[in-house]
């Protein structure tokens, strides 16, 4: 475990006097609960009333940022799409697809960056503006790192195109050029602008030689004395050999041509062609890749990686990927010059140049405030088959570990849990178990939310969770006297035991009130009746009442009898059933056949033999009627 390079931050809990009292705490999935205890730091225990609140402390504020939510949602879509395209492609088309996915991720980051930037400059509160600015720089660092990883690991550009990609990378991330350019060109006399030469130099440093030439021609128009020199330098710029995307030159050809051109520039310098204009001379030196000249332009370069790319452009344009790290290290050292030490971002970029993916991920995990970046980048690199499976102590590999951490963070959010589900789905070892644990703990405030959670569980055959959630909801419904809802939940969970409970409730209500409540439910049970015996009995018993009401006594009688003989009726209810038989026996016409009457008597005997004390009078009445 490495040492932390900064002191841990102290958070004060409002209302708690930490000088006098002690606090207790407990960890949660993404939060911490803290409250004051009655223990004192000093010996004697004070009965002073302290802070009566329990505080919830959250570390991961990012999850609650409005703009970052868009990042999470959009990248979720890209992530799921990436997992799906996995199996289909091989070879070159696969690489193109992966590069496209990477560009999608980056454009999402950029969109958030833009929006946050707008908010940072538009906001009135300086503190919030500062916070946004910190977020903006964090996001732009992320995009910088991702872009470099895309070039080196996903695109896997070979020598030649590699430099072009790196040039694009630098151009994308050093954006002051455009504003400077607009500034200078917008003025009346561009070549007399005080920052004119700055602009030309920056354009040369970024390899934008066409634009630099245009600037030079303006200068040539203005001051005829330097026109000749400008023309020569402009020609040198025009003739510099570069590898353009559609070019079929081989690398060796390019190298030869470039060598030739380099010598020509050298010659001009030694001949003193540009001696009378210090600006032009330093430009020529830059184009020769002279380190000292480049270092003079530190201010315009502003970062060591810009320095690196410019240096490569003008001294080793056909650099191979494997040689990059030599130049990177020396560029870093030269640029910093021993004055300052490298920052975390520098270390990350350096690790990338050294093709040490694990180091990149590790450093990013330490430096960034949430798992979003490392989780998605690692997943993408894993799809490029670049990560050997490092077995971490708990058995899963790095990709899965990061995805699990990220998804757990999402579950700690009240709303983003739905995104977390898909992430868990794509963690083969521990994803399902984690999902099972998390999904049971989502608070269910409305039925609609419960339905969504249940759908998630059912789609993944998590029957235990379905059962437990339905049981909770059914209990709540029973307590609120919504027996129909309770029944529909137990049907969904196929929970026979609970259906029995609900039916018992109905039967009890009937016994107490003498009539059925919720007839609309009982009359229309349909096939759900088969779920539990008690429920079937309830349905059939209601049918008996209906038949009786319609005066179809014979059918009613045989139904009643079958309820007892088929053992569907609970014993406790038999007396009621037998009592219901009484009016049928009292009818003028004979309803029960002889056999049926014998059955009735047998049931009665069964019943009375078990409970000799209770029910005697009715039993006698019944016996009387049978004869």
């Amino acid at each position, binding site marked *: 475990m490495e040492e932390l390079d900064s002191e841990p931050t102290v958070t004060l809990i409002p209302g708690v006097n930490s000088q006098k009292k002690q606090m207790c705490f407990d960890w949660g999935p993404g939060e911490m609960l803290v409250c004051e205890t009655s223990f004192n730091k000093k010996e004697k225990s004070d009965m002073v009333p302290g802070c009566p609140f329990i505080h919830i402390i959250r570390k991961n504020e990012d999850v609650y940022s409005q703009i970052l939510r868009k990042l999470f949602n959009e990248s979720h879509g890209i992530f799921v799409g990436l997992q799906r395209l996995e199996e289909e492609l091989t070879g070159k088309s696969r690489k193109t697809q992966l590069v496209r996915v990477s560009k999608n991720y980056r454009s999402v980051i950029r969109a958030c960056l833009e929006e946050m930037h707008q908010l940072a400059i538009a906001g009135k509160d300086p503190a919030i503006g500062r916070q946004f600015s910190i977020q903006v720089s964090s996001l732009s660092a992320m995009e910088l790192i991702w872009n470099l990883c895309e070039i080196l690991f996903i695109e896997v550009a070979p020598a030649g195109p590699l430099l072009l990609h790196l040039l694009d990378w630098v151009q994308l991330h050093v954006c002051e050029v455009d504003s400077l350019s607009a500034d200078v060109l917008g003025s009346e006399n561009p070549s007399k602008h005080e920052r004119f030469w700055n602009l030309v130099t920056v354009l040369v440093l970024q390899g934008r030689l066409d634009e630099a030439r245009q600037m030079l021609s303006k200068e040539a128009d203005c001051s005829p004395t330097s026109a000749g020199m400008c023309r020569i330098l402009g020609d040198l710029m025009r003739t510099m050999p570069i590898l353009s995307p559609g070019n079929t030159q081989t690398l060796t050809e390019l190298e030869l041509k470039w060598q030739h051109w380099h010598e020509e520039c050298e010659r001009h310098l030694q001949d003193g062609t540009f001696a009378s204009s210090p600006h032009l001379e330093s430009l020529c030196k830059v184009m020769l890749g002279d380190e000292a000249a480049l270092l003079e332009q530190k201010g315009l370069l502003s970062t060591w990686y810009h320095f690196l790319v410019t240096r490569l452009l003008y001294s080793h344009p056909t650099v191979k990927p494997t040689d990059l790290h030599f130049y990177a290290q020396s560029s870093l050292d030269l640029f910093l010059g021993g004055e300052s030490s490298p920052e975390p971002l520098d270390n990350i970029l350096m690790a990338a140049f050294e093709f040490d993916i694990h180091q990149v991920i590790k450093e990013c995990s330490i430096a960034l405030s949430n798992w979003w970046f490392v989780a998605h980048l690692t997943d993408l690199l894993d799809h490029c088959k670049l990560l050997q499976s490092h077995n971490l102590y708990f058995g899963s590999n790095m990709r899965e570990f990061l995805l699990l951490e990220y998804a757990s963070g999402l579950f700690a959010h009240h709303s983003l849990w739905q995104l977390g589900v898909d992430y868990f789905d794509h963690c083969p070892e521990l994803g399902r178990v984690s999902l099972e644990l998390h999904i049971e703990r989502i608070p269910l405030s409305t039925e*609609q939310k419960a339905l969504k959670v249940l759908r998630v569980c059912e789609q993944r055959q998590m029957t235990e969770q379905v059962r437990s959630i339905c049981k909770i909801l059914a209990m709540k419904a029973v307590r*609120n006297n919504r027996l129909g*809802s309770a029944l529909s939940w137990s*049907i969904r969970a196929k929970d026979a035991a609970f259906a029995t409970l609900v039916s018992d409730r109905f039967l009890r209500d009937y016994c107490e009130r003498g009539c059925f409540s919720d007839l609309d439910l009982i009359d229309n049970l349909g096939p759900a009746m088969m779920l539990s015996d008690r429920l079937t009995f309830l349905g059939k018993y209601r049918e008996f009442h209906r038949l009786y009401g319609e005066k179809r006594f014979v059918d009613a009688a045989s139904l009643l009898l079958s309820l007892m003989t088929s053992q569907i009726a609970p014993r406790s209810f038999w007396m009621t059933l037998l009592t219901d038989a009484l009016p049928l026996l009292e009818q003028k016409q004979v309803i029960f056949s002889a056999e049926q009457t014998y059955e009735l008597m047998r049931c009665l005997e069964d019943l009375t033999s078990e409970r000799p004390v209770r029910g005697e009078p009715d039993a006698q009445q019944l016996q009387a009627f049978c004869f």
Partner: protein
Amino acid sequence: MEEIYAKFVSQKISKTRWRPVPPGSLQTTETFATGSWDNEENYVSLWSIGDFGNLDSDGGFEGDHQLLCDIRHHGDVMDLQFFDQERIVAASSTGCVTVFLHHPNNQTLSVTQQWTAARHHTGPGSPSCSSAPCTGIACSNPEIVTVGEDGRINLFRADHKEAIRTIDNADSSTLHAVTFLRTPEILTVNSIGQLKIWDFRQQGNEPSQILSLTGDRVPLHCVDRHPNQQHVVATGGQDGMLSIWDVRQGTMPVSLLKAHEAEMWEVHFHPSNPDHLFTCSEDGSLWHWDASTDVPEKSSLFYQGGRNSTFLSHSISNQANVHQSLISSWLITDPTKDRIEITSLLPNRTLSVNSLDVLGPCLVCGTDAEAIYVTRQLFS
């Protein structure tokens, strides 16, 4: 389906509704309202898709929708309806029903009325007045009908403080949605798969009619009435099945169409082209059902990279005695003659599509992936 614009809005959208255009106006609608859910702070918001005249520097998102105003809402927004041009009624998971008023001059929303205690559970186990979520609203100026998880139906009138009429224990299970059939009659669907028709002219607490499927009691989640023929009703269920009912005829549905793979959250007939039906579901898709009996060329208009499949409808009841001329195309049962064309409108699978609304050539829908999709060229 030419262009559909998506925008991520940092809140899960539970309901989207177009603002109705004034009758007789030739304009298409330009504003829609959304309600969010599952946030610590939920909002009812108004958005505009009007052309802004000036394009942005990066090529102009003229189709993009912009937030006009929003207002905090306590609890999840369970249902949302436009009461008239300026007023929006929202049902909350706290059981409260709120009427919001939109002020077009300064683009703000404010609360004009609220009924809070109308919805609660009563029962031996629950504390008195524990709140129950309100799940559905139907508006027919000046009346508002609400239903909820407590199985109670409340009838409100705007500007009256208390409910005009309450039907207690109208249902032993949760009522999921409600719609007006004719003005004194409403139709509700519940979580044991029943449709019940209630007539407010009658005094009792019993429904005037009950319809249900004979098979499994699958909960029904949404209902919509045919705009022209008030006896034709479509419902969507928990298993994603779309059912068309004729409430004059018997107690069983006219057709059952296997549709989505998960709960169907909303079903809508198109108000001016009722041969078109739209459904959205938990499985992340939004489907456009076209039952118009035009010439087959029209099928090319709808195939824009979306899924295009043709289903035959199953019919399970006999329609022998209904005159052919009066049948809407949804009730036609001859499987060889009619074909319903189904198109999926969203470009790729997403999380649940919770809500949709159609008006004229415009469609809006909201998803759990915190995105709102709008298209203004539904029938291009």
